[in-house]
């Protein structure tokens, strides 16, 4: 039986999840912290740039401190056939291992807390307008982008030397256009003569995506992002886990109304669509939604403390 909603003084004290935009802004700055590059007209070239960051953050952004895992992965797949032909052992294990380590620890949590492009989408969505939902079937498209443009096309479509292209970066990625394409053309005049059809294609795509961000929240993350698609596969098997207490849940749908990716968490607590922003934990008046990481539980634990008893959380 559902319990009465908590009155305001009983609600859990303010947690990091209540300040999430500040974390997102902090990560945006932290991942792109080498500001001097903007004035020198070049990109950061320090030795730490080989570290794969847990976000879709273009490494050609002038101030980017790390490597985009999706860009790096395509580079490996694109070069695999050539490397095999010269017996060079470069398989992309480092990038795959980096991505999978993040996924098996926290699943898609970096999408909700770290990714600068996700943050930008949420900011643009704050522009007042009619808000539209995405048909759920469209969310499966991101797996198509992951399989086709990150893995198969770079691997299978190769030039005379055996090199494949970075298809996703080249034809789709609006994060690359926003974080690198526009700024580099501004700060590096020598690149301007090279602007042609591809550049206009990518800028046009960015404009279309930006318009979509106004009407729909995080549409890129939900329908296109191959990194989110990859990490989503780990949501059900990561150390970080969401849980819904069926005894407390009233199916009031308040969690879904607040959810930036339109997940019905009461149907699937660890859905591959969930970006683990934890807004639902705050919005649930009944304390039905909790999360667990390395044995530590949140929210329901606040309630348990208030009510002085142990309660079973069902996943």
């Amino acid at each position, binding site marked *: 039986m559902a319990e009465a909603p908590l009155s305001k003084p009983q609600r859990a004290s303010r947690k990091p999840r209540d300040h999430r935009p500040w974390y997102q802004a902090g990560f945006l700055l932290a991942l792109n912290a080498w500001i001097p590059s903007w004035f020198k007209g070049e*990109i*950061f*070239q*320090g*030795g730490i*740039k*080989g570290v*794969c960051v847990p976000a879709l953050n*273009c*490494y*050609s952004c002038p101030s*980017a401190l*790390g*490597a985009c895992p999706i*860009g*790096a992965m395509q*580079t*490996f797949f694109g070069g695999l056939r050539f490397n095999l032909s010269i017996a060079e*052992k*470069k*398989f*992309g*294990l*480092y*990038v*795959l*291992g*980096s*991505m*999978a*380590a993040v*996924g*098996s*620890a926290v699943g898609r949590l970096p999408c909700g807390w770290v990714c600068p492009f996700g943050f930008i989408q949420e900011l643009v969505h704050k522009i007042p307008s009619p808000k539209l939902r995405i048909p759920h079937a469209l969310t499966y498209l991101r797996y198509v982008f992951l399989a086709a443009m990150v893995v198969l096309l770079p691997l299978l479509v190769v030039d005379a030397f055996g090199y494949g*292209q*970075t298809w996703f*970066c*080249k034809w789709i*990625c609006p994060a*690359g*256009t926003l974080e*690198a*394409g526009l700024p*580099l*053309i501004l700060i*590096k005049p020598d*690149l301007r003569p*090279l*602007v*042609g059809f*591809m*550049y*206009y*294609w*990518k*800028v046009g795509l960015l404009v279309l995506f930006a318009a979509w961000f106004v009407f729909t929240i995080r549409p890129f993350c939900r329908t296109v992002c191959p990194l989110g698609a990859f990490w989503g596969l*780990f949501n059900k*098997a*990561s*150390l970080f886990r969401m849980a819904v207490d069926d005894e407390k849940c009233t199916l009031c749908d308040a969690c879904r109304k607040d959810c930036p990716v339109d997940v019905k968490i009461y149907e699937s607590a660890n859905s591959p669509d969930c970006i683990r922003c934890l807004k639902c934990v705050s919005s649930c008046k009944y304390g039905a939604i909790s999360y667990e990481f390395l044995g530590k539980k949140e929210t329901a634990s606040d309630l348990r403390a208030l009510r002085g008893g142990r309660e079973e959380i069902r996943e």
Partner: protein
Amino acid sequence: MRRRLPWILLAASLALLTAGLLLGEYRTVLEKAITVCLDCIGIG
């Protein structure tokens, strides 16, 4: 098994990561990352 699965996945991921590092893949990623990616910015 369900409790162990995340740890098994994490261990396998770290093993892949380590193997990649031993094969010198960090250097490959670094070389790509410190070069302006013309594909990424739409002039490749």
